[in-house]
């Protein structure tokens, strides 16, 4: 359960102050899929950064499973991110010089996961994105779609509760992008991770349960798709 309460983010001082986010409040249940939609400059990336604890709000707070991020020490937030969150970026950010295996191992190393099953977890994650046979290839030799699949493997290896995806299809052609989106949603189902996608793609947003549309730092619209149960109930 993630609760975003009255988040405000302002840059600059007094006269030249710029409000990137203005009194945003949200509530996201575990395992939900959330789309944060908006044009560039609407504040959607800033909201994602604040929700993940990378950035601090000027006002308000974010509560994840009862823990207030803004009350944690930097060390605790780091540990929290290492164990419970992960990221997928538009530009992939995979290390070209390292092998796929080494790329996926990174979160486990950061989270100080010990033991023999480390290797198995990496291989499982690679298998989940269908990159098993590329384990020992260097990431720079992968295609764009493969790179993003590798990034997804890296995002799920730690079995996080929360996956943030920042324009995950922005650098991909539509066919490859669709496959990536399918993959993300299937992972959401199988792992039960909450998926927060930042996008300006309405089609992609439409597949998410919660759609938050931002405009000039404010919530323009907040749509929660009815679940099948509620749809069924409504039909009756």
């Amino acid at each position, binding site marked *: 359960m993630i609760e975003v309460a009255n988040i405000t983010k302002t840059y600059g001082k007094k006269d030249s102050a710029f409000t990137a986010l203005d009194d945003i409040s949200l509530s996201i249940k575990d395992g939900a899929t959330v789309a944060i939609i908006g044009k560039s400059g609407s504040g959607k990336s800033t909201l994602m*950064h604040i929700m993940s604890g*990378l950035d601090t709000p000027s006002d308000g707070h974010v509560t994840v499973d009862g823990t207030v991020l803004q009350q944690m020490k*930097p060390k605790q937030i*780091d540990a929290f991110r290492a164990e419970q969150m992960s*990221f997928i970026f538009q530009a992939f950010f995979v290390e070209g010089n390292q092998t796929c295996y080494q790329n996926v191992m990174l979160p486990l190393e950061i989270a100080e996961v010990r033991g023999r099953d480390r290797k198995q977890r990496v291989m499982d994650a690679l298998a989940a994105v269908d990159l098993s046979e590329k384990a020992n290839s260097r990431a720079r030799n992968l295609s764009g779609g493969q790179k993003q699949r590798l990034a997804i493997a890296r995002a799920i290896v730690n079995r996080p509760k929360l996956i943030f995806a920042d324009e995950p299809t922005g650098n991909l052609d539509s066919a490859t992008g669709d496959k990536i989106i399918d993959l993300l949603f299937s992972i959401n189902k199988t792992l039960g991770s909450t998926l927060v996608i930042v996008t300006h793609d309405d089609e992609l947003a439409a597949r998410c349960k919660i759609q938050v549309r931002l405009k000039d730092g404010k919530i323009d619209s907040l749509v929660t798709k009815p679940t099948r149960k509620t749809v069924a109930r409504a039909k009756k």
Partner: protein
Amino acid sequence: MRIQDTIRRSGRSLRSAKLRTVLTSLAIAVGGFTLTITLAAGNGIREYTDRLVTSNFDSSELIVGRDKEVSNTGAPSTEPKEYDESVTSMAIGGDGSSLQIKQVTPEDITELKSLPYIEEVRENYQLAARYITREGQKRFTLSATAYNPAQKPELAAGTLPKTGDIADNQVMLPEGYVKALGFKSDKDALGKKISINIQKPFVDGGGEQVLAAIRNGVDPRTLQPESQMRTFTIAAITKKAATSINFGTLPVLVSTNDAKQMYDYTTEGTPSYDKYTYVYVRVKDGEKQASIDAAQADLKAKKYFTMSSKEIQQSITQIVNILQALVGVFGLITVIASVFGIVNTQYISVLERIREIGLMKALGMRKRDLRRLFMLEAGWIGFLGGAIGSAGALLVGIPLNPWITKKLDLGEGNSLLIFRPSQIAALIVGLMIVAILAGYLPARKAAKMDPIEALRTE
């Protein structure tokens, strides 16, 4: 991040920039090379002087004198001594300088012998013999002294006495005299006889003898003091050892008894008669440094000046240490210069990997771990530099060693460059630490980086 993961990851990122890594580490390698060679040369010289001292001085013996010059090591003293009528004057030093030396008297020797911690007192006979010769051969100058069992001269022929002194009326002859005195070979000379001529001094400047000669109608210019021929049997032939301290010619060695007789004969009537610049004193339990120290302290209280073999060694090694420090400073300067190379390389590395750093921070990597990652990278550069440098030093030094030994005439079994694995390991560790410290600033920059800035895609 656990340390082993950090080490592996830092090594891996260096491998992905091989050329830059190697070039940066080469700068440290130069320092590592210089320092390895310096350390090895220091070891070699120190070991050589150790051998020099132990083969020339008995470590359980002390040199004891009445004059502070006896215990003067290193630089000559600049403070003048007050004139003392009872002190005899004698010239020392190759520069012709003359110095008053307060000598050790028979009373001093009696006192020394009575001390409970002294086992034996050996007088130091500086013999002034005129010449050495053999029937039908030319006459040659020589230096002669008493055989010192502790010195164990190296022999070309014959044998050393198993214990104690050589027999009276026997000599150990330096090999240079063998051919000069007409022997066919070293072996041929053994058991043959030679003669040494010694001369009585003119007492009181010889004034009385001159007057007596004039009275007897003899030209005083032809006057010769009384002299004596002593005949010795050759017991052994000595050769120059690589570790012998001898200025000029090797001395002819005689027994202590013979040396005493000859010394008395040549000094009779002079102020030096029965007096010695210094004597050798054997300390009871002298193998233990504590007994030597105690003896030296007590002798000092009794206004004697002493010098132990350890002090002689120190006076030599002091010079070595100074030289080594000088060369070492150059090595250190190189290392300092290479530090800037590391700082520069690591800054570039941090700037090149802004994205990677941002990602790691986003994934929850702690500042401390990130700092450690980059400092360890610098540490790897230091390790590589140290390893390349000392490997280079070994590659150059080991094959060159025999040649240097030959050129410097160090003698068989002595090497100028002695490489100690422990020292090389310590040096590499030291260079790693220097490199890690050099990596601190770039690492801090990486740790402080704002992940949001770093991950901005445009």
